Protein backbone atom coordinates (compact mmCIF):
# COMPACT_ATOMS: atom_id res chain seq x y z
CA UNK A 1 0.00 0.00 0.00
CA UNK A 2 2.71 2.45 1.05
CA UNK A 3 4.87 1.38 -1.86
CA UNK A 4 2.00 1.96 -4.28
CA UNK A 5 1.40 5.39 -2.83
CA UNK A 6 5.05 6.31 -3.16
CA UNK A 7 5.22 5.09 -6.72
CA UNK A 8 2.11 6.95 -7.81
CA UNK A 9 2.66 10.10 -5.77
CA UNK A 10 3.48 12.31 -8.79
CA UNK A 11 0.28 11.27 -10.53
CA UNK A 12 -1.76 11.82 -7.38
CA UNK A 13 -0.31 15.33 -7.02
CA UNK A 14 -1.20 16.09 -10.61
CA UNK A 15 -4.71 14.66 -10.30
CA UNK A 16 -6.40 17.86 -9.03
CA UNK A 17 -5.30 19.89 -12.04
CA UNK A 18 -6.26 17.19 -14.55
CA UNK A 19 -9.54 16.48 -12.79
CA UNK A 20 -10.56 20.12 -12.48
CA UNK A 21 -9.70 20.95 -16.08
CA UNK A 22 -11.32 17.73 -17.32
CA UNK A 23 -14.55 18.55 -15.54
CA UNK A 24 -14.71 22.35 -15.73
CA UNK A 25 -13.32 22.77 -19.24
CA UNK A 26 -13.93 19.64 -21.30
CA UNK A 27 -17.01 18.42 -19.45
CA UNK A 28 -18.59 21.86 -19.50
CA UNK A 29 -17.89 22.45 -23.18
CA UNK A 30 -19.45 19.09 -24.02
CA UNK A 31 -22.49 19.95 -21.87
CA UNK A 32 -22.88 23.26 -23.72
CA UNK A 33 -22.51 21.45 -27.03
CA UNK A 34 -25.24 19.00 -26.04
CA UNK A 35 -27.59 21.75 -24.83
CA UNK A 36 -27.11 23.57 -28.15
CA UNK A 37 -28.88 20.62 -29.80
CA UNK A 38 -31.89 20.83 -27.49
CA UNK A 39 -34.90 23.12 -27.31
CA UNK A 40 -33.95 24.57 -23.90
CA UNK A 41 -35.61 27.81 -22.85
CA UNK A 42 -35.38 28.95 -19.22
CA UNK A 43 -34.09 25.62 -17.96
CA UNK A 44 -32.00 23.04 -19.81
CA UNK A 45 -33.99 20.22 -21.38
CA UNK A 46 -32.25 17.04 -22.37
CA UNK A 47 -34.30 15.80 -25.34
CA UNK A 48 -32.41 16.25 -28.58
CA UNK A 49 -33.90 18.72 -31.02
CA UNK A 50 -31.39 18.72 -33.88
CA UNK A 51 -29.94 21.83 -35.43
CA UNK A 52 -32.94 24.04 -34.63
CA UNK A 53 -31.03 26.45 -32.41
CA UNK A 54 -28.34 26.96 -35.05
CA UNK A 55 -31.01 27.66 -37.68
CA UNK A 56 -32.64 30.15 -35.33
CA UNK A 57 -29.27 31.72 -34.57
CA UNK A 58 -28.32 32.34 -38.19
CA UNK A 59 -31.79 33.67 -38.94
CA UNK A 60 -31.55 36.15 -36.09
CA UNK A 61 -30.91 39.72 -37.19
CA UNK A 62 -29.16 40.50 -33.92
CA UNK A 63 -26.73 37.61 -34.34
CA UNK A 64 -25.96 38.62 -37.92
CA UNK A 65 -25.27 42.16 -36.74
CA UNK A 66 -22.96 40.89 -34.01
CA UNK A 67 -21.02 38.72 -36.45
CA UNK A 68 -20.77 41.66 -38.84
CA UNK A 69 -19.52 43.88 -36.02
CA UNK A 70 -17.03 41.25 -34.97
CA UNK A 71 -15.58 41.08 -38.50
CA UNK A 72 -15.29 44.87 -38.78
CA UNK A 73 -13.82 45.19 -35.30
CA UNK A 74 -11.35 42.32 -35.75
CA UNK A 75 -10.07 43.62 -39.09
CA UNK A 76 -9.48 47.18 -37.86
CA UNK A 77 -8.22 46.08 -34.46
CA UNK A 78 -5.66 43.77 -36.10
CA UNK A 79 -4.45 46.30 -38.64
CA UNK A 80 -4.06 49.21 -36.24
CA UNK A 81 -2.54 47.19 -33.40
CA UNK A 82 0.01 45.54 -35.65
CA UNK A 83 0.95 48.68 -37.60
CA UNK A 84 1.28 50.84 -34.49
CA UNK A 85 3.01 48.04 -32.61
CA UNK A 86 5.60 47.57 -35.36
CA UNK A 87 6.25 51.30 -35.80
CA UNK A 88 6.78 51.76 -32.07
CA UNK A 89 8.99 48.67 -31.81
CA UNK A 90 11.21 49.70 -34.73
CA UNK A 91 11.52 53.28 -33.53
CA UNK A 92 12.28 52.20 -29.97
CA UNK A 93 14.94 49.88 -31.34
CA UNK A 94 17.09 52.85 -32.51
CA UNK A 95 19.00 53.29 -29.21
CA UNK A 96 16.48 55.80 -27.96
CA UNK A 97 17.04 57.84 -24.82
CA UNK A 98 14.44 57.15 -22.11
CA UNK A 99 13.40 53.96 -23.84
CA UNK A 100 12.31 52.43 -20.54
CA UNK A 101 9.96 55.32 -19.76
CA UNK A 102 8.40 55.27 -23.23
CA UNK A 103 7.96 51.52 -23.12
CA UNK A 104 6.26 51.79 -19.74
CA UNK A 105 3.86 54.40 -21.14
CA UNK A 106 3.01 52.34 -24.23
CA UNK A 107 2.27 49.22 -22.24
CA UNK A 108 0.50 50.45 -19.11
CA UNK A 109 -3.03 50.11 -20.58
CA UNK A 110 -2.50 46.34 -20.55
CA UNK A 111 -2.43 46.47 -16.75
CA UNK A 112 -5.88 48.09 -16.58
CA UNK A 113 -9.22 46.36 -16.92
CA UNK A 114 -11.43 47.00 -19.92
CA UNK A 115 -14.04 48.36 -17.52
CA UNK A 116 -11.65 51.02 -16.25
CA UNK A 117 -10.48 52.03 -19.71
CA UNK A 118 -14.01 51.80 -21.10
CA UNK A 119 -15.20 54.19 -18.41
CA UNK A 120 -12.42 56.63 -19.25
CA UNK A 121 -13.02 56.48 -23.01
CA UNK A 122 -16.75 56.85 -22.54
CA UNK A 123 -16.14 60.14 -20.76
CA UNK A 124 -13.58 61.33 -23.31
CA UNK A 125 -15.77 60.47 -26.31
CA UNK A 126 -19.05 61.75 -24.91
CA UNK A 127 -20.44 64.37 -27.27
CA UNK A 128 -21.40 67.10 -24.83
CA UNK A 129 -18.40 67.60 -22.58
CA UNK A 130 -15.69 65.44 -24.15
CA UNK A 131 -13.38 65.79 -27.15
CA UNK A 132 -16.01 67.63 -29.17
CA UNK A 133 -16.18 70.45 -26.63
CA UNK A 134 -12.39 70.59 -26.44
CA UNK A 135 -12.10 71.24 -30.18
CA UNK A 136 -14.95 73.75 -30.17
CA UNK A 137 -13.26 75.74 -27.40
CA UNK A 138 -10.04 75.62 -29.38
CA UNK A 139 -11.84 77.49 -32.15
CA UNK A 140 -13.11 74.72 -34.42
CA UNK A 141 -16.68 75.87 -33.99
CA UNK A 142 -18.36 73.35 -36.28
CA UNK A 143 -16.42 70.37 -35.00
CA UNK A 144 -18.69 67.44 -34.21
CA UNK A 145 -17.65 64.11 -32.80
CA UNK A 146 -20.67 62.05 -31.86
CA UNK A 147 -19.47 58.55 -32.78
CA UNK A 148 -20.44 57.17 -29.39
CA UNK A 149 -24.14 57.89 -29.96
CA UNK A 150 -24.13 57.42 -33.73
CA UNK A 151 -25.39 54.03 -34.93
CA UNK A 152 -23.09 53.98 -37.94
CA UNK A 153 -19.95 55.05 -36.12
CA UNK A 154 -20.25 53.65 -32.58
CA UNK A 155 -18.38 50.45 -33.46
CA UNK A 156 -15.30 52.55 -34.30
CA UNK A 157 -15.17 53.98 -30.78
CA UNK A 158 -14.69 50.41 -29.59
CA UNK A 159 -11.84 50.07 -32.09
CA UNK A 160 -10.21 53.26 -30.75
CA UNK A 161 -10.34 52.05 -27.16
CA UNK A 162 -9.35 48.48 -28.05
CA UNK A 163 -6.32 49.57 -30.07
CA UNK A 164 -5.27 51.92 -27.30
CA UNK A 165 -5.36 49.02 -24.86
CA UNK A 166 -3.54 46.40 -26.92
CA UNK A 167 -1.12 48.12 -29.33
CA UNK A 168 1.57 48.32 -26.64
CA UNK A 169 1.43 44.58 -26.25
CA UNK A 170 2.19 44.05 -29.94
CA UNK A 171 5.04 46.56 -29.54
CA UNK A 172 6.48 44.45 -26.69
CA UNK A 173 6.28 41.26 -28.76
CA UNK A 174 8.00 42.82 -31.78
CA UNK A 175 10.63 44.59 -29.70
CA UNK A 176 11.55 41.27 -28.09
CA UNK A 177 11.67 39.71 -31.57
CA UNK A 178 13.89 42.45 -33.03
CA UNK A 179 16.25 42.30 -30.04
CA UNK A 180 16.77 38.59 -30.57
CA UNK A 181 18.19 39.13 -34.07
CA UNK A 182 21.99 39.02 -34.30
CA UNK A 183 23.62 42.46 -34.73
CA UNK A 184 25.93 40.99 -37.36
CA UNK A 185 23.09 40.50 -39.82
CA UNK A 186 22.19 44.20 -39.70
CA UNK A 187 25.83 45.29 -39.92
CA UNK A 188 26.49 43.07 -42.91
CA UNK A 189 23.47 44.45 -44.73
CA UNK A 190 24.55 48.03 -44.05
CA UNK A 191 28.01 47.36 -45.45
CA UNK A 192 26.36 46.04 -48.59
CA UNK A 193 24.79 49.48 -48.88
CA UNK A 194 21.34 48.82 -47.55
CA UNK A 195 19.61 51.77 -45.90
CA UNK A 196 17.82 51.53 -42.62
CA UNK A 197 14.48 51.26 -44.36
CA UNK A 198 15.66 48.39 -46.56
CA UNK A 199 17.21 46.62 -43.58
CA UNK A 200 13.88 46.56 -41.80
CA UNK A 201 11.59 46.04 -44.78
CA UNK A 202 13.63 43.41 -46.57
CA UNK A 203 15.51 41.65 -43.81
CA UNK A 204 14.21 42.13 -40.29
CA UNK A 205 10.45 42.20 -40.80
CA UNK A 206 10.45 39.02 -42.91
CA UNK A 207 12.39 37.39 -40.06
CA UNK A 208 9.57 38.37 -37.69
CA UNK A 209 7.09 35.96 -39.24
CA UNK A 210 6.55 33.96 -36.06
CA UNK A 211 5.92 37.22 -34.15
CA UNK A 212 3.33 38.27 -36.74
CA UNK A 213 1.69 34.90 -36.35
CA UNK A 214 1.64 35.09 -32.55
CA UNK A 215 0.26 38.65 -32.55
CA UNK A 216 -2.39 37.65 -35.05
CA UNK A 217 -3.55 34.72 -32.94
CA UNK A 218 -3.60 36.68 -29.68
CA UNK A 219 -5.39 39.68 -31.16
CA UNK A 220 -8.05 37.58 -32.90
CA UNK A 221 -8.51 35.70 -29.66
CA UNK A 222 -8.98 38.97 -27.72
CA UNK A 223 -11.44 40.30 -30.27
CA UNK A 224 -13.64 37.18 -30.41
CA UNK A 225 -13.88 37.23 -26.62
CA UNK A 226 -14.37 41.00 -26.34
CA UNK A 227 -17.15 41.66 -23.92
CA UNK A 228 -16.09 43.97 -21.06
CA UNK A 229 -15.09 46.83 -23.32
CA UNK A 230 -18.44 46.87 -25.10
CA UNK A 231 -20.36 46.65 -21.84
CA UNK A 232 -18.43 49.58 -20.40
CA UNK A 233 -18.43 51.73 -23.53
CA UNK A 234 -21.72 51.25 -25.38
CA UNK A 235 -23.59 48.26 -23.85
CA UNK A 236 -24.17 47.16 -27.42
CA UNK A 237 -25.92 50.39 -28.33
CA UNK A 238 -27.15 52.70 -29.67
CA UNK A 239 -29.93 50.18 -30.26
CA UNK A 240 -28.09 46.97 -31.04
CA UNK A 241 -25.59 48.61 -33.40
CA UNK A 242 -22.46 47.57 -31.47
CA UNK A 243 -23.53 44.19 -30.18
CA UNK A 244 -21.02 41.35 -30.52
CA UNK A 245 -21.18 37.55 -30.14
CA UNK A 246 -19.98 37.49 -26.52
CA UNK A 247 -22.63 40.04 -25.56
CA UNK A 248 -25.28 38.17 -27.55
CA UNK A 249 -24.43 34.97 -25.70
CA UNK A 250 -24.66 36.37 -22.15
CA UNK A 251 -27.84 38.29 -22.92
CA UNK A 252 -29.56 35.24 -24.41
CA UNK A 253 -28.43 33.06 -21.49
CA UNK A 254 -29.07 35.29 -18.50
CA UNK A 255 -31.59 37.94 -19.55
CA UNK A 256 -33.77 36.35 -22.21
CA UNK A 257 -34.09 32.76 -21.03
CA UNK A 258 -32.91 31.36 -24.36
CA UNK A 259 -30.53 28.78 -22.94
CA UNK A 260 -30.44 26.61 -26.07
CA UNK A 261 -29.85 29.57 -28.37
CA UNK A 262 -27.12 30.98 -26.16
CA UNK A 263 -25.42 27.55 -26.08
CA UNK A 264 -25.48 27.51 -29.89
CA UNK A 265 -23.91 30.98 -30.03
CA UNK A 266 -21.27 29.94 -27.50
CA UNK A 267 -20.39 26.94 -29.65
CA UNK A 268 -20.03 29.18 -32.71
CA UNK A 269 -17.54 31.29 -30.73
CA UNK A 270 -15.78 28.16 -29.57
CA UNK A 271 -15.39 26.97 -33.15
CA UNK A 272 -14.11 30.35 -34.31
CA UNK A 273 -11.44 30.33 -31.59
CA UNK A 274 -10.55 26.70 -32.33
CA UNK A 275 -10.10 27.50 -36.03
CA UNK A 276 -7.39 30.00 -35.09
CA UNK A 277 -5.84 28.25 -32.09
CA UNK A 278 -5.47 24.68 -33.29
CA UNK A 279 -3.18 25.52 -36.25
CA UNK A 280 -1.23 27.79 -33.90
CA UNK A 281 -0.74 25.12 -31.22
CA UNK A 282 0.15 22.61 -33.91
CA UNK A 283 2.87 24.82 -35.39
CA UNK A 284 4.19 25.78 -31.93
CA UNK A 285 4.50 22.15 -30.93
CA UNK A 286 6.22 21.28 -34.19
CA UNK A 287 8.69 24.07 -33.62
CA UNK A 288 9.37 22.83 -30.12
CA UNK A 289 9.85 19.25 -31.29
CA UNK A 290 12.14 20.34 -34.10
CA UNK A 291 14.47 21.99 -31.60
Amino acid sequence: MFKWLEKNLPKIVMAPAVGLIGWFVYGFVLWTLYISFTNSKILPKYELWGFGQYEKLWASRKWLISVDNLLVFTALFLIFCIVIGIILAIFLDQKIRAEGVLRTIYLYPMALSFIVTGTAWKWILNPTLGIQKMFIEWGFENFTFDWLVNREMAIYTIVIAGVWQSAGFVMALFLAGLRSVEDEIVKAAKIDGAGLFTVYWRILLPMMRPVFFTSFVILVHISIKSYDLIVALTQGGPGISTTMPALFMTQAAFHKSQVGLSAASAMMMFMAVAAVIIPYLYSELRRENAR
Partner: protein
Amino acid sequence: MQDNLKSSSYQQLEQKSKYTNMFLRWFLYFVLILFASYFIFPLYVMVVTSLKTMEEIRQGTLLSWPSGLNFDSWAVAWGGRGYGAGDTFLKPYFWNSIKMVVPAVFFSTFIGAMTGYVLTKWRFKGDSWVFLFLLFGCFIPFQAILLPMARTLGALGISNSIVGLVLVHTVYGIPFTTLFFRNYYVSVPTELVKAARIDGAGFFKIFFKILLPISAPIIVVTVIWQFTQIWNDFLFGSTFSFGEAAPIQVALNNMVLSSTSVKEYNVDMASAIIAGVPTLIVYVLAGKYFIRGLTSGAVKG
Protein backbone atom coordinates in the same frame (compact mmCIF):
# COMPACT_ATOMS: atom_id res chain seq x y z
CA MET B 1 42.36 41.36 -41.88
CA GLN B 2 39.15 41.27 -43.78
CA ASP B 3 37.28 41.92 -40.57
CA ASN B 4 39.27 45.11 -39.99
CA LEU B 5 38.54 46.28 -43.48
CA LYS B 6 34.89 45.70 -43.00
CA SER B 7 34.62 47.54 -39.71
CA SER B 8 36.56 50.58 -40.99
CA SER B 9 34.36 50.91 -44.06
CA TYR B 10 31.41 50.53 -41.74
CA GLN B 11 32.65 53.47 -39.70
CA GLN B 12 33.00 55.59 -42.84
CA LEU B 13 29.47 54.75 -43.73
CA GLU B 14 28.32 55.83 -40.28
CA GLN B 15 30.17 59.17 -40.68
CA LYS B 16 28.63 59.89 -44.04
CA SER B 17 25.10 59.38 -42.93
CA LYS B 18 25.53 61.49 -39.81
CA TYR B 19 23.54 64.46 -41.08
CA THR B 20 20.61 62.52 -42.48
CA ASN B 21 20.64 60.71 -39.17
CA MET B 22 20.22 63.98 -37.27
CA PHE B 23 17.02 64.73 -39.10
CA LEU B 24 15.86 61.15 -38.80
CA ARG B 25 16.37 61.13 -35.05
CA TRP B 26 14.31 64.28 -34.55
CA PHE B 27 11.55 62.66 -36.57
CA LEU B 28 11.91 59.50 -34.51
CA TYR B 29 11.52 61.30 -31.20
CA PHE B 30 8.62 63.32 -32.57
CA VAL B 31 6.66 60.20 -33.53
CA LEU B 32 7.50 58.40 -30.31
CA ILE B 33 6.40 61.34 -28.16
CA LEU B 34 3.26 61.77 -30.25
CA PHE B 35 2.26 58.17 -29.53
CA ALA B 36 3.27 58.52 -25.89
CA SER B 37 0.83 61.41 -25.54
CA TYR B 38 -1.91 59.33 -27.18
CA PHE B 39 -1.31 56.59 -24.61
CA ILE B 40 -1.00 58.93 -21.64
CA PHE B 41 -3.97 61.14 -22.66
CA PRO B 42 -6.79 59.05 -21.08
CA LEU B 43 -4.88 58.64 -17.82
CA TYR B 44 -4.24 62.38 -17.67
CA VAL B 45 -7.90 63.12 -18.38
CA MET B 46 -9.00 60.67 -15.69
CA VAL B 47 -6.77 62.23 -13.06
CA VAL B 48 -7.61 65.89 -13.78
CA THR B 49 -11.33 65.17 -14.14
CA SER B 50 -11.40 63.39 -10.79
CA LEU B 51 -9.93 66.49 -9.14
CA LYS B 52 -12.44 68.95 -10.62
CA THR B 53 -15.86 69.99 -9.38
CA MET B 54 -18.81 69.43 -11.73
CA GLU B 55 -18.96 73.18 -12.24
CA GLU B 56 -15.35 73.21 -13.48
CA ILE B 57 -16.06 70.24 -15.73
CA ARG B 58 -18.94 72.02 -17.43
CA GLN B 59 -16.94 75.19 -17.95
CA GLY B 60 -13.52 73.81 -18.85
CA THR B 61 -12.32 71.26 -21.38
CA LEU B 62 -10.92 67.76 -21.03
CA LEU B 63 -7.39 69.05 -20.77
CA SER B 64 -7.95 72.07 -18.54
CA TRP B 65 -6.15 72.07 -15.22
CA PRO B 66 -8.24 71.73 -12.01
CA SER B 67 -8.39 74.80 -9.79
CA GLY B 68 -6.89 72.92 -6.86
CA LEU B 69 -6.34 69.51 -5.35
CA ASN B 70 -9.94 68.67 -4.59
CA PHE B 71 -10.35 65.08 -3.41
CA ASP B 72 -14.08 65.31 -2.70
CA SER B 73 -15.09 63.05 -5.58
CA TRP B 74 -12.51 60.50 -4.41
CA ALA B 75 -14.13 60.47 -0.98
CA VAL B 76 -17.58 60.01 -2.56
CA ALA B 77 -16.31 57.22 -4.83
CA TRP B 78 -14.68 55.39 -1.94
CA GLY B 79 -17.06 56.03 0.95
CA GLY B 80 -20.33 57.30 -0.51
CA ARG B 81 -22.35 60.35 0.40
CA GLY B 82 -23.66 59.04 3.66
CA TYR B 83 -27.35 58.58 2.85
CA GLY B 84 -29.05 55.21 2.83
CA ALA B 85 -30.62 53.62 -0.21
CA GLY B 86 -29.01 53.91 -3.61
CA ASP B 87 -25.71 55.15 -2.25
CA THR B 88 -23.19 52.88 -3.97
CA PHE B 89 -19.51 53.31 -3.27
CA LEU B 90 -16.45 51.18 -3.84
CA LYS B 91 -15.05 50.45 -0.40
CA PRO B 92 -16.92 47.16 0.32
CA TYR B 93 -16.37 45.90 -3.24
CA PHE B 94 -12.69 46.72 -3.07
CA TRP B 95 -12.45 44.38 -0.07
CA ASN B 96 -14.55 41.79 -1.92
CA SER B 97 -11.97 41.81 -4.67
CA ILE B 98 -9.10 41.45 -2.19
CA LYS B 99 -10.87 38.52 -0.49
CA MET B 100 -11.38 36.93 -3.90
CA VAL B 101 -7.93 37.59 -5.38
CA VAL B 102 -5.71 36.45 -2.52
CA PRO B 103 -6.95 32.84 -2.15
CA ALA B 104 -7.54 32.39 -5.89
CA VAL B 105 -3.98 33.50 -6.72
CA PHE B 106 -2.56 31.31 -3.95
CA PHE B 107 -4.40 28.13 -4.93
CA SER B 108 -3.92 28.46 -8.67
CA THR B 109 -0.21 29.24 -8.28
CA PHE B 110 0.33 26.32 -5.91
CA ILE B 111 -1.50 23.83 -8.12
CA GLY B 112 0.34 25.14 -11.19
CA ALA B 113 3.71 24.78 -9.47
CA MET B 114 3.04 21.19 -8.41
CA THR B 115 1.69 20.21 -11.82
CA GLY B 116 4.58 21.89 -13.64
CA TYR B 117 6.99 20.04 -11.33
CA VAL B 118 5.46 16.64 -12.09
CA LEU B 119 5.27 17.31 -15.83
CA THR B 120 8.98 18.12 -16.06
CA LYS B 121 10.75 16.18 -13.29
CA TRP B 122 8.62 13.04 -12.86
CA ARG B 123 7.97 12.35 -16.47
CA PHE B 124 5.75 9.45 -17.43
CA LYS B 125 4.34 8.00 -20.60
CA GLY B 126 1.91 10.42 -22.23
CA ASP B 127 2.92 13.40 -20.12
CA SER B 128 3.15 15.70 -23.12
CA TRP B 129 -0.45 14.83 -23.93
CA VAL B 130 -1.44 15.77 -20.40
CA PHE B 131 0.32 19.11 -20.89
CA LEU B 132 -1.52 19.71 -24.16
CA PHE B 133 -4.77 18.72 -22.43
CA LEU B 134 -4.19 21.40 -19.79
CA LEU B 135 -2.81 23.99 -22.22
CA PHE B 136 -5.97 23.98 -24.30
CA GLY B 137 -7.75 25.43 -21.28
CA CYS B 138 -5.88 28.71 -21.87
CA PHE B 139 -7.75 29.29 -25.08
CA ILE B 140 -11.38 28.35 -24.62
CA PRO B 141 -13.82 31.24 -24.90
CA PHE B 142 -15.41 31.33 -21.47
CA GLN B 143 -18.85 31.73 -23.00
CA ALA B 144 -18.74 27.99 -23.67
CA ILE B 145 -18.63 27.23 -19.92
CA LEU B 146 -20.76 29.99 -18.43
CA LEU B 147 -24.07 28.12 -18.43
CA PRO B 148 -22.91 24.87 -16.78
CA MET B 149 -20.74 26.89 -14.36
CA ALA B 150 -23.74 28.91 -13.21
CA ARG B 151 -25.66 25.68 -12.60
CA THR B 152 -22.75 24.02 -10.82
CA LEU B 153 -22.24 26.97 -8.48
CA GLY B 154 -25.96 26.86 -7.74
CA ALA B 155 -25.84 23.12 -7.02
CA LEU B 156 -22.88 23.61 -4.69
CA GLY B 157 -24.72 26.41 -2.91
CA ILE B 158 -21.99 28.96 -3.61
CA SER B 159 -23.53 31.05 -6.37
CA ASN B 160 -23.30 34.78 -5.76
CA SER B 161 -20.51 34.37 -3.21
CA ILE B 162 -16.82 35.12 -2.93
CA VAL B 163 -16.13 31.40 -2.41
CA GLY B 164 -17.75 30.65 -5.76
CA LEU B 165 -15.63 33.24 -7.54
CA VAL B 166 -12.47 31.91 -5.86
CA LEU B 167 -13.30 28.46 -7.23
CA VAL B 168 -13.95 29.78 -10.74
CA HIS B 169 -10.76 31.84 -10.88
CA THR B 170 -8.65 29.06 -9.40
CA VAL B 171 -9.86 26.51 -11.95
CA TYR B 172 -9.48 28.70 -15.03
CA GLY B 173 -6.11 29.97 -13.83
CA ILE B 174 -4.59 26.48 -13.66
CA PRO B 175 -3.80 26.17 -17.41
CA PHE B 176 -1.80 29.43 -17.29
CA THR B 177 0.02 28.75 -14.04
CA THR B 178 0.90 25.23 -15.20
CA LEU B 179 2.23 26.64 -18.47
CA PHE B 180 4.45 29.14 -16.62
CA PHE B 181 5.92 26.64 -14.16
CA ARG B 182 6.31 23.88 -16.72
CA ASN B 183 8.26 26.15 -19.07
CA TYR B 184 10.44 27.33 -16.19
CA TYR B 185 11.20 23.90 -14.70
CA VAL B 186 12.01 22.46 -18.13
CA SER B 187 15.24 24.49 -18.08
CA VAL B 188 16.27 23.25 -14.61
CA PRO B 189 18.78 20.39 -15.11
CA THR B 190 17.15 17.05 -14.38
CA GLU B 191 20.52 15.75 -13.06
CA LEU B 192 19.94 17.77 -9.90
CA VAL B 193 16.73 15.89 -9.27
CA LYS B 194 18.23 12.53 -10.17
CA ALA B 195 21.14 13.01 -7.78
CA ALA B 196 18.76 13.94 -4.98
CA ARG B 197 16.68 10.84 -5.67
CA ILE B 198 19.75 8.63 -5.41
CA ASP B 199 20.47 10.28 -2.06
CA GLY B 200 17.03 9.12 -0.98
CA ALA B 201 15.15 12.41 -1.16
CA GLY B 202 11.43 11.97 -1.74
CA PHE B 203 8.96 13.72 -3.99
CA PHE B 204 8.11 16.60 -1.68
CA LYS B 205 11.60 17.02 -0.28
CA ILE B 206 12.98 17.51 -3.80
CA PHE B 207 10.33 20.09 -4.54
CA PHE B 208 10.73 22.10 -1.35
CA LYS B 209 14.52 21.80 -0.99
CA ILE B 210 15.69 22.00 -4.61
CA LEU B 211 13.07 23.54 -6.90
CA LEU B 212 11.20 25.94 -4.66
CA PRO B 213 14.31 27.90 -3.58
CA ILE B 214 15.14 28.70 -7.22
CA SER B 215 11.55 29.43 -8.24
CA ALA B 216 11.29 33.03 -7.03
CA PRO B 217 11.28 34.67 -10.50
CA ILE B 218 8.58 32.43 -11.93
CA ILE B 219 6.48 32.70 -8.78
CA VAL B 220 6.60 36.49 -9.15
CA VAL B 221 5.63 36.26 -12.83
CA THR B 222 2.75 33.88 -12.07
CA VAL B 223 1.43 35.81 -9.09
CA ILE B 224 1.47 39.10 -11.01
CA TRP B 225 -0.23 37.50 -14.01
CA GLN B 226 -2.95 35.86 -11.92
CA PHE B 227 -3.43 38.95 -9.76
CA THR B 228 -3.91 41.18 -12.82
CA GLN B 229 -6.22 38.71 -14.58
CA ILE B 230 -8.45 38.11 -11.57
CA TRP B 231 -8.54 41.70 -10.36
CA ASN B 232 -9.49 42.90 -13.84
CA ASP B 233 -12.01 40.15 -14.58
CA PHE B 234 -15.51 41.31 -15.38
CA LEU B 235 -17.16 38.39 -17.20
CA PHE B 236 -17.12 35.93 -14.28
CA GLY B 237 -17.77 38.62 -11.70
CA SER B 238 -20.81 39.99 -13.49
CA THR B 239 -22.21 36.55 -14.38
CA PHE B 240 -21.78 34.78 -11.05
CA SER B 241 -22.30 37.57 -8.56
CA PHE B 242 -24.46 40.60 -8.00
CA GLY B 243 -25.37 42.93 -5.17
CA GLU B 244 -23.14 42.76 -2.14
CA ALA B 245 -20.91 39.91 -3.26
CA ALA B 246 -19.76 41.64 -6.45
CA PRO B 247 -16.07 42.34 -7.08
CA ILE B 248 -14.86 45.87 -7.76
CA GLN B 249 -15.00 45.86 -11.58
CA VAL B 250 -18.69 44.93 -11.47
CA ALA B 251 -19.37 47.60 -8.85
CA LEU B 252 -17.52 50.20 -10.92
CA ASN B 253 -19.59 49.36 -13.97
CA ASN B 254 -22.82 49.55 -11.97
CA MET B 255 -21.82 52.89 -10.46
CA VAL B 256 -21.00 54.40 -13.82
CA LEU B 257 -24.15 53.08 -15.50
CA SER B 258 -26.61 53.99 -12.75
CA SER B 259 -28.43 56.96 -14.19
CA THR B 260 -30.48 57.93 -11.16
CA SER B 261 -29.29 61.50 -10.93
CA VAL B 262 -27.11 63.90 -12.85
CA LYS B 263 -23.96 62.27 -14.25
CA GLU B 264 -21.03 62.99 -12.02
CA TYR B 265 -18.03 62.45 -14.22
CA ASN B 266 -15.57 63.43 -11.52
CA VAL B 267 -16.86 60.64 -9.25
CA ASP B 268 -16.85 58.19 -12.19
CA MET B 269 -13.21 58.98 -12.93
CA ALA B 270 -12.18 58.75 -9.29
CA SER B 271 -13.91 55.35 -9.11
CA ALA B 272 -12.18 54.14 -12.27
CA ILE B 273 -8.80 55.18 -10.87
CA ILE B 274 -9.49 53.42 -7.55
CA ALA B 275 -10.42 50.24 -9.45
CA GLY B 276 -7.30 50.48 -11.62
CA VAL B 277 -4.71 51.57 -9.07
CA PRO B 278 -3.77 48.17 -7.58
CA THR B 279 -2.81 46.62 -10.92
CA LEU B 280 -1.18 49.86 -12.04
CA ILE B 281 1.03 49.90 -8.94
CA VAL B 282 2.04 46.29 -9.53
CA TYR B 283 2.85 47.16 -13.15
CA VAL B 284 5.01 50.15 -12.24
CA LEU B 285 6.86 48.28 -9.48
CA ALA B 286 7.36 44.99 -11.29
CA GLY B 287 6.91 45.84 -14.97
CA LYS B 288 9.70 43.49 -15.99
CA TYR B 289 7.89 40.47 -14.57
CA PHE B 290 4.55 41.67 -15.91
CA ILE B 291 5.92 41.83 -19.45
CA ARG B 292 7.58 38.46 -19.06
CA GLY B 293 4.24 36.96 -18.11
CA LEU B 294 2.56 38.62 -21.07
CA THR B 295 5.06 37.47 -23.65
CA SER B 296 5.68 33.96 -22.31
CA GLY B 297 2.03 33.34 -21.60
CA ALA B 298 1.41 35.02 -24.95
CA VAL B 299 -2.08 33.59 -24.94
CA LYS B 300 -3.82 36.27 -22.96
CA GLY B 301 -7.47 35.53 -22.36
